[in-house]
Structures are given as structure tokens and as C-alpha cells.
């Protein structure tokens, strides 16, 4: 159920009595779920805090109009919660793997005949009509699928290079293809826009859950 306006995201002042919300906002939910390791009182702003703020801003931007009494709550609180937390903690590759597992499980229900995350994401992006998700969310799925495939290819290549080029076999460490070489998809490539992709992924999940209309108990 969509609300009329953007959630405000109130932050209780330190030491004050926290209030109980009467209409749940996504901002409070996001703060609660992903801020466990951020330390806003630290003298220097940590990477954790910065990533949390990035993620928080993009989720609230892409899910503007949704409140906690909507499918967005489960999208960020149950389906993509671990992926988001791994991102905040600074494990982008693990976040991508988690993202792939959760999104692909849902996509497999929508596209049962297809064999890979990339194929299913592409099929989702090609949908039009009632089952279509917003183009922004669809393109995020395709990017995530491509990135996960690249991650897999990088891991496979790395494995081969370690096997073939390992120093124990007489090669110098740091040479072509060895474990220390920069991968074709560097950390920056994994991480730079992951907060935005996760938020757009959350939009896709929210819409899928809405379309499923999984009201489990009827009179």
C-alpha cells in the first residue's frame, strides 16, 4: 500500500526517550536493520557510516511513497536484508552473491523455463504490461545478473591462475594471472554503485510481492 508522501526518517536525539511510531516509515526500518555497525558518534566518519547513508538515501529515494505497511518492508527487511547488511559491512562480493541467491529464487518462480540468472533477468526486463516492473528496477536486475556472472568468471579465472602460475611451481609472485593481480572486475566495479542497485532491486522485489498478492487467509 503506497502512502502519499516520502517517509520522513526521524532520528531520536541521543539520550531521549525513543518514540513508538504510529505509522511505520521505511526510514526507521532501514536505520534499524542496517545501522547496527555504524557509529555516528565516532570522531571520524567510518566507511560503515558512509555506506549506510548511501544505501539509506537510495532506498528512500527509489521506494518513495511506500511506508512500512507495504510489501517494501519485506523486500528490504526479509528478502534483501542480508545483501544490504553485507554491503554496509563492506563485503560487496558476498552482497552480490546473496543478492543473486534471493533475487534469482524469486525470478525462477516468474520465469521457470529459463536456466540462468542472466536469462531470467533479461526475460524480466523484457516484460511489458501488468507484470512489468519499473524500467529502472529491470535494468538493475540485468546489471546485477551480469555482475554476478562476471564475478563467477573472475573466480574461475583466478582459480586457474593460482593453479597454473603459483609461486610454488617456480613462478614469481605478482606475475600475470596470479592471485594478487587486479581482476577484470575490480573492487571498485563491484562496489561503486551497489547501494543503488540494491535499492532498485528492492523496488523489483516490492512489485513482485505486490503482484503475488499473497493474502494467505480468506474468509
Amino acid at each position, binding site marked *: 500500500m503506497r502512502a502519499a508522501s516520502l517517509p520522513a526518517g526521524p532520528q531520536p536525539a541521543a539520550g531521549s526517550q525513543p518514540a513508538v511510531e*504510529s505509522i511505520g516509515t521505511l526510514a526507521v526500518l532501514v536505520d534499524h536493520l542496517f545501522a547496527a555497525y555504524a557509529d555516528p558518534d565516532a570522531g571520524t566518519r567510518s566507511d560503515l557510516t558512509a555506506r549506510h547513508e548511501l544505501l539509506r538515501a537510495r532506498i528512500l529515494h527509489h521506494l518513495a511513497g511506500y511506508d512500512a505497511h507495504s510489501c517494501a518492508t519485506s523486500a528490504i527487511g526479509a528478502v534483501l536484508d542480508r545483501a544490504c547488511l553485507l554491503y554496509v559491512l563492506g563485503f560487496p562480493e558476498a552482497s552480490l552473491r546473496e543478492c543473486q541467491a534471493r533475487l534469482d529464487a524469486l525470478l525462477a518462480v516468474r520465469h521457470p523455463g529459463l536456466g540462468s540468472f542472466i536469462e531470467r533477468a533479461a526475460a524480466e526486463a523484457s516484460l511489458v504490461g501488468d507484470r512489468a516492473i519499473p524500467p529502472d528496477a529491470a535494468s538493475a536486475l540485468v546489471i546485477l545478473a551480469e555482475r554476478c556472472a562476471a564475478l563467477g568468471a573472475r573466480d574461475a579465472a583466478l582459480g586457474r591462475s593460482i593453479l597454473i602460475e603459483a609461486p610454488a611451481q617456480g613462478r614469481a609472485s605478482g606475475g600475470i594471472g596470479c592471485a594478487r593481480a587486479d581482476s577484470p572486475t575490480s573492487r571498485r566495479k563491484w562496489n561503486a554503485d551497489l547501494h543503488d542497485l540494491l535499492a532498485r532491486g528492492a523496488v523489483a522485489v516490492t512489485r513482485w510481492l505486490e503482484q503475488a498478492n499473497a493474502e494467505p487467509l480468506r474468509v
Partner: protein
Amino acid sequence: MATCDVLVIGGGPAGSTAAAAAARRGVAVIQVEKTDGNRYHIGESLIPFCAYPLRRIGVYDAVKVAGFPVKYGVQFVGTSGAASRPFDFFQYLMDGSAVAWQVWRADFDRLLLDHARAQGVEQRRGAAAERFLIDRGRVVGAVVDGQPIHARMTIDCTGRDALALRSFAWRERDPGLDRWAVWTYFTGHRLESGIDAGNTFVCSLPCGGWFWWIPVGRDRVSVGAVAKRESLFPADLDLGEDRLAAAWQRQFAMQPWIRDHLSGAERVEPFRSTNEYAYRARYCGAPGLILAGDAFGFLDPIFSSGVFLALWSGESAGHVAADIVAGGAELSRLDAYGSRLGNAIESIRRLVYAFYEPTFAFSRIMARDSDARADISDLLNGNFARDYQDFFRQVEDFCPLPAPFGHGLVAARAAAAAAGDPQHQPVAQATQHAESSQ
């Protein structure tokens, strides 16, 4: 003489939901409520599945903006004062209904009552139903403030006043759940942070009982102790003049989490108590009569199932009544209603029994089977209609579970079976008795 299709007796959640559901089907409904609509009531915690009947009768959006504190989940606190991880409803319920509320019942009940009136229900507030009208074994209405109201179907939603249970001697107590409760309200208490601020906390006591902690408003929390009578009111202990306060204080002293969160808080209401903690009607209905909400049965409130069962049974009863008024087969519909309601209560009843067993702990079940967290969350959500056989088989490894509490059938069906003629419409034994004693 007043007449209607459906007479709903009671203005609580069950009554207002039944009245609204029936009125939305286009039948003429009269609803009577003994108060003017302002009524104190215990049972302040909603669970996610409350959203469905609230949506279906069209009142969900009004509840959402009414200012009730949001409840994301439930947490259990051990006798040491350590709290569990929250059972956040949204982790297992993914359709946007996962966030519930804590409600000040006077406000919540009035909101539902006003909504029922807006659906076309004719309401008589401040009018008390005295007895049923019975004609040839069929309930045909009730006497309200000395005046008869005739109805094709009557729905008893009289809550703990339990008009049918008293009239027909249908009350069956659940012997294993004979608990008492003593409760009051505080302000100036300490809340958890973030989304946990509105959670219900179930805090275990060394005596085997528990405290509830329900933040019912921005500045008010409901705190109640539930235990066996001998634990709350030991026969060998002089509790003084204010027995309720003394009983509550004794348990309060034994729960560190409650003590900590009430440090510096101020009590703002008197102590209250109840001892009617688990009962069920022998029958869910009879010709012309359907029971719903607490008028049908009540279960120990540890998992906050009461308001949901009231809403769900009220809505179901409203539809069953509308079906019968429209010419539907009465006994088969009452049969389906009774068995569905009985089965639903049975699932949560077994979990209540397990909770009181000293050998049972949620953490033990989940340590062995991580999927059990989903089952427990489903039960806490209010998803009582699904199959929990696998889960309870595991629970039985830790503690014994009760035999089904086999009540809630249809009076007329039981009488028909006894008469050996299921096609016959016999007079139910109990209503027969009530009729002859009028």
C-alpha cells in the same frame, strides 16, 4: 416489534466485524452494545493477520492513521532478563500486512463500532441483551432492554459476558490453562530503540508464569503478570489489603527486564485482574445462532491471538449469517465455521501449552531445526489455518502436548446425530432446555 435479518449482540471487535461484514453483503443488521461505545477492555496487541479482516470490511486505512503504536514483532525475555532476537513479522509475511499495532482498546473498539454504523448497520448503543428469543428450538432474536428484536440469524458477540454460554450452560474450561492475570499501566517507562520500541515482550517468571509488556501509546505501557493462582496469591502469604498490587509487586521483583524498563516509571491506572483464562463453548452455534469472539472461546493471551480470533470469527460469522439469510444450508455452513475456528484455535493452543512446559524453549527447537523459526513466526503472525504437524512433532520431543479440546461443533448437528436422523432439523438439546425454562 423490531425485526432484521441479522442481530449482532455486542460492540467489541467480533461484533462490529460481524455486523460490518454482514451489512456489506446487503442484509439488514441490528447491532446492540450495552455501553455507549466507550468501553475499557484488555487485549491490546494486534497481530499481522488482523490486517485481512480489517481490510475486507474496509476499515484498515482508518486504523492505519488512528495513531496506534506500530508493532513489528515479538520478543521473549528469560528469567535472567536477557531478551531474544525479535521475531519480526516481516521476515516471513511478505504481503504488506506484516506490521501490526498495539491499541488502546477503547479507541480501537469505538473505531470499529463507528465503521460498522457507516456500513449501514442500525446500532443501539447503551442497550443490553437480556436473553435469547427461542421458538421451536430455533433462536429467533433476543430481548433487548425489555423489548424483543426478531432476527433470522443472531450472532452472539457478548465477549466474556457470554450470553449463550450462560443461557445454555455451554462453557467448557480448558483445565491445563487455569491462569490468573494481574495488570496495570505505567508512564515514564523505558522503551527499546528503533523498530523494537513497539514490540510485545513476553517475560518469563521463575514461577512458570510471565509478564506482558505492551506499549499501548506514546506514553503508556500495559504490564501484566500471568501465573497460576497459587503463584500469584499464595495461601500461606498475607498480601495485605491491596492483594492485586501485592501480587503484582511480588512477580515484578523477580523479572529483571521489567524492573529495568519500569525504573522511574509512574503507575497511572489501578490494578485489575481476571481469572477466566481459557474456555470454549461446547457448540459454535445452533439453529438461528452463531457464536463469535470471546463469546465462543478464549485462549491464554500469551501470543496475542485474542483480537485476531475475534476479528476473524466475527467476519466469518457475519458471512455465514448472510449466507443463511440468503437461503444457504444452515447446518453445513455452521459445521464449516465451527470446525475451521476450532482447528485454528487448536494450533495456537498447543503452542500455549508448550510455552508453559519447563522443558520447552523456542531456542531449543530452533537450535535443532532452523526452519522452526518460520513455523513459530507463522503462529505469531496469526496464520493458524495452515498445517503445523511437522512442527508440533518436533515440539513433542521436548514436552507433552494436550489432546484436542474437542468442542465447537454445532448444537443441532450433535442433537441430530444423537437422534439418528441427520436430515431432520431437531431441537438442540441445550436450546430446548433454555426454551422450556423461559
